[in-house]
């Protein structure tokens, strides 16, 4: 495990039509390149899971990869709405998108339960909201000790969990630092996983506050420098704020989005096929 491979081969092996796929990342270390590789490989009917879906999920939804989204916040951070996401929910374009909404803590606790091999998580949220009636995955549960009625949400165990990290060693051990969100939890909770990294090094020297994912907890590691762009990898790159601003205009319009898809993400497909021909 922790096998070092290419992004293309990892996605080809891990992601299948109809899979439940979680690409996680918060503020930085967002696995954008991996999401775009899923678009390139033409995966369909995915259930996408993420606490805070941003532009990479907008791109995947706009490209028709997803049939369902499980989330707690969906937006273009610092800019506004995700227009491809809204078009899918409001107008069913390019395909209808079912949504399952949770609170932030609900999502985080679902991953924690999944990582721990427990069937559900328990928390105090949700009581009194309309989510309870809309969502079969939110149920009341009575504390056996105090009698307090709380909420249970089932464990999340995605078929595929994908995160980006700073680096890995040649044995496939991964090291990340900065805001690590639920990186650890989603990798441990997922049946199979991929970590894209900025670089593969001989030795992981200690960093304050770093999280280590051991090679045996990870399916694949792929070296993808800049794989978090336009988000950043602390210590390696800066956030590309202009990209997020530009995405607003591109994503507002179906044709502009189509042109973007053809001229960026899909152009690499032709380049790859051209190499092989």
């Amino acid at each position: 495990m922790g096998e070092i491979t290419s992004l293309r081969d990892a996605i080809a092996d891990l992601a299948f039509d109809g899979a439940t796929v979680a690409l996680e990342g918060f503020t930085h270390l967002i696995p954008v390149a991996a999401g775009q590789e899923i678009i390139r490989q033409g995966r369909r009917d995915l259930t996408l899971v993420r606490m805070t879906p941003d532009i990479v999920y907008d791109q995947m939804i706009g490209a028709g990869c997803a049939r369902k989204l499980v989330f707690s916040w969906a937006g273009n951070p610092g800019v506004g709405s995700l227009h491809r996401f809204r078009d899918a929910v409001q107008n069913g374009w390019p395909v209808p998108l079912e949504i399952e909404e949770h609170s932030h803590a609900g999502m985080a606790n679902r991953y924690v339960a999944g990582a721990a091999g427990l069937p559900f998580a328990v928390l105090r949220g949700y009581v009194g909201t309309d989510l309870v009636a809309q969502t079969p995955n939110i149920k009341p549960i009575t504390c056996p000790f105090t009698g307090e009625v709380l909420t249970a949400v089932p464990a999340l165990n995605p078929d595929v969990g994908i995160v980006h990290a700073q680096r890995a060693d040649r044995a496939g051990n991964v090291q990340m630092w900065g805001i690590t969100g639920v990186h650890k939890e989603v990798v441990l909770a997922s049946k199979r996983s991929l970590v894209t990294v900025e670089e593969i090094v001989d030795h992981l020297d200690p960093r304050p506050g770093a999280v280590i994912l051991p090679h045996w907890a990870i399916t694949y590691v792929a070296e993808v420098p800049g794989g978090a762009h336009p988000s950043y990898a602390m210590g390696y790159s800066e956030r590309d704020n202009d990209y997020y601003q530009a995405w607003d205009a591109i994503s507002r319009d179906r044709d502009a989005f189509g042109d973007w898809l053809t001229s960026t993400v899909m152009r690499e497909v032709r380049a790859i096929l051209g190499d092989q021909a």
Partner: protein
Amino acid sequence: MDASRAEVCVVACAEAWRGDGEILASPMGIIPRLGAELARHTFAPDLLLSDGEAYLMAGDTVEGWLPYRAVFGVVAAGTRHVMMGASQLDRFGNQNISAVGDWARPRSQLLGVRGAPGNTVNHPTSYWVPRHSPRVFVERVDMVCGVGYDRAGGRFHEIRLVVTNLAVLDFDTPDRAMRLRSVHPGVSVSDVVAATGFPLAVPDGVPETRLPTAAELALIRDRLDRDARRDREVP
């Protein structure tokens, strides 16, 4: 020194955290953020404030590390007071930030429930509405994300204040329906009533929202918001 409407709003937001002690203040929006910073610099020095990413800041000094994942522990422990936005808000303080229209096929899909279901039942929550209008203040919200007083909010539920560009509102009534607490200088009670899409509890003699002190104005203008970002949120 005449205070602008935005500056009155900053002070009104600051007042939401008065007396909270050593808790995490989580302001969403420019004016709530300035309000929390103003409170911290003046009458609420124990407040913990994030830099918006993962550091807890005391002015320019880092005083703690509170990454996203750890905030949920703080929420569950109740040692936090958030001021959130609201796309819709009803007379009992139910808040909607998820979708306008029918949830299954909304007219407008918004950003999602985010932390509202957990925030409102675990610790005090206040709301900031930069444009007070009947589109926001509605008889019934289309989807309850943050829990109001007519629902089972539980023992930690508290909707403290609603601050808008026109007024300050609270729920200090026998049936916990929304009440007009004060009107900002230059705003009449009838202005607020007209901009509210449900019958508002209006006590006799609604006071004016307090003006910023000279020291508070100096802090806002010369230290906290030299670029006048506040004027973009409330012109």
